[in-house]
């Protein structure tokens, strides 16, 4: 079995056809959310913080929030939406009566989740540019939006394909995505608050790596640890995608 690109694209187009009906209402909150964060935390809380990580708090905050937007965009898609398509709408069962194979479905869903990540992350980036927070080197952070999208699409897909009921998504959001959002270097440098022998904990968090890469891009700085960050994203995504591939095969055929 292998991915047929035209078939994967037809899966993507199914989701796009549904999104097209609602995007006007969906995209507006995508623009407002970053504005609220920047006002409340960047400007509000930031007024009490003289500097963080060597910059103003607003500047510190911006790159991480781009990654959070990408994470959220991909996560909503591969959790509830995938679960509904799988379980209630029987969309994948329908596809399996056509030449579409499970691998095509997986590829189409990942591509769609990345598309949503790009819409979220892209909106955020545009707002940052409007506020004058997107420097020229920060453009290098743009490829991180789809990369973070793939990573969180893969994590969410494995979860969605393995859980027995829809209620478990509240665990995913509250006990997984929320702590990631709060502790992955977005609001403060986690490594500076952790005791020496607990530093590895930070390195396990999946959101931390795109955040560190994005911040480096925004600040135009390069360090060797970025290779580790990029490697983490690529290797973990690849491993989870292989797992998701097995899981979707098991869910759709027997």
């Amino acid at each position, binding site marked *: 079995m292998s991915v047929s690109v035209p078939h994967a694209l037809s*899966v993507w187009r199914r989701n796009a056809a549904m999104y097209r009906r609602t995007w006007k209402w969906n995209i507006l909150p995508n623009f407002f959310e970053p504005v609220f964060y920047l006002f409340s935390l960047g400007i509000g809380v930031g007024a009490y913080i003289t500097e963080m990580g060597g910059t103003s708090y607003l500047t510190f905050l911006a790159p991480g929030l781009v990654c959070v937007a990408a994470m959220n965009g991909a996560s909503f898609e591969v959790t509830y939406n995938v679960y509904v398509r799988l379980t209630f709408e029987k969309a994948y*069962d329908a596809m399996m009566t*056509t*030449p579409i194979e499970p691998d095509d479905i997986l590829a189409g869903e990942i591509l769609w989740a990345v598309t949503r990540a790009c819409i979220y992350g892209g909106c955020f980036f545009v707002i940052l540019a409007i506020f004058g927070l997107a420097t020229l080197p920060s453009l290098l952070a743009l490829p991180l939006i789809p990369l973070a999208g793939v990573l969180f699409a893969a994590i969410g897909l494995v979860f969605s394909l393995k859980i027995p009921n829809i209620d478990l998504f509240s665990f995913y959001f509250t006990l997984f995505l929320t702590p990631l959002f709060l502790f992955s270097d977005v609001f403060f440098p986690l490594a500076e608050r952790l005791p020496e022998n607990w530093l590895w904990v930070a390195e396990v968090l999946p959101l931390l790596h795109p955040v560190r890469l994005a911040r480096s891009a925004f600040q135009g700085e390069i360090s060797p640890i970025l290779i580790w960050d990029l490697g983490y994203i690529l290797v973990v995504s690849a491993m989870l995608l292989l797992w998701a591939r097995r899981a979707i095969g098991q869910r759709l*055929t*027997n």
Partner: protein
Amino acid sequence: MIVEVSSVSKRFGSRLVVDNLSLMVSAGVCFGLLGPNGAGKTTTMRMIYGVTQPTSGTIRVFGIDIARNLRAVRSRLGVTLQQSVLIEALSPRENLRVFGRYHLLREPELSRRIDELVEFLELGSHGDVPSKQLSGGFQRRLAIALSLMNRPQLLILDEPTTGLDPAVRLALWSRIRDLRSEGTTILLTTHYMDEAQRLCDRVAIISRGKIIDEGPPTDLITTHLAPETVEFDCAPEEEATLLYGLSLPSRRLRVGKRVMVYLEDATSLSDHIRHRDEGDRRAVVVRPTNLEDVFLALTGTSLEGGL
């Protein structure tokens, strides 16, 4: 042969759902898989379009081994599943468009095919309203339209009219006949005997994962039973007295108090019973023998699962 299933078994854990089953469907035929719920009909169908892998045996569709080239097989067949697969937020036309893309149809062929199917299944009146607002019969017609997007040579219908009202069933049957007369091979499952009898050129009666017998419906009736049936209520101990003095044919079945006798000509027996029941006449039904009787005779159980 359009479909060749050779010695196929399917085991789920310790449960043997399909037991060394073989069947052949030739081109242009409407073939019915008949049996009660849980007999293995749906599993057999799923194996034919390749989403369930047989534990043993081989399946060829259009002469192609489905274990080898499933995509090639699926591009030439259509499947209407039992459960609804419609995208409720989208209109019938939009649903057809999405499905056409799964088959990689492009414009202008895509729109042309949608128009054809909207006309063929009479979907035009609600072609642009969200599918969730459609009635059950309308949704089923749309579901069949979806599986016809790629002009399939083989159409697989899993319980096509379950849960539909009689008028809608009649309309659907006539569409299925139209498709057959255009040369589409049809494989359907049903637990409705009348449906099988009216639609199918051949039927296979399936019970506990095995085919018990197979052939044209009328042949099955004449081979196993007789063309006419006399049906009446009669307690077992009363039966001998009631039928005393008649030289009765071999086939007689009993379900509880109900007795069914199968004959070439039902007149003599019905007259006989009328004659015996002088004052208080029992209800005697004379009717053509149907596949339900054959099923009962072959398996000793009734299809609706009562016994």
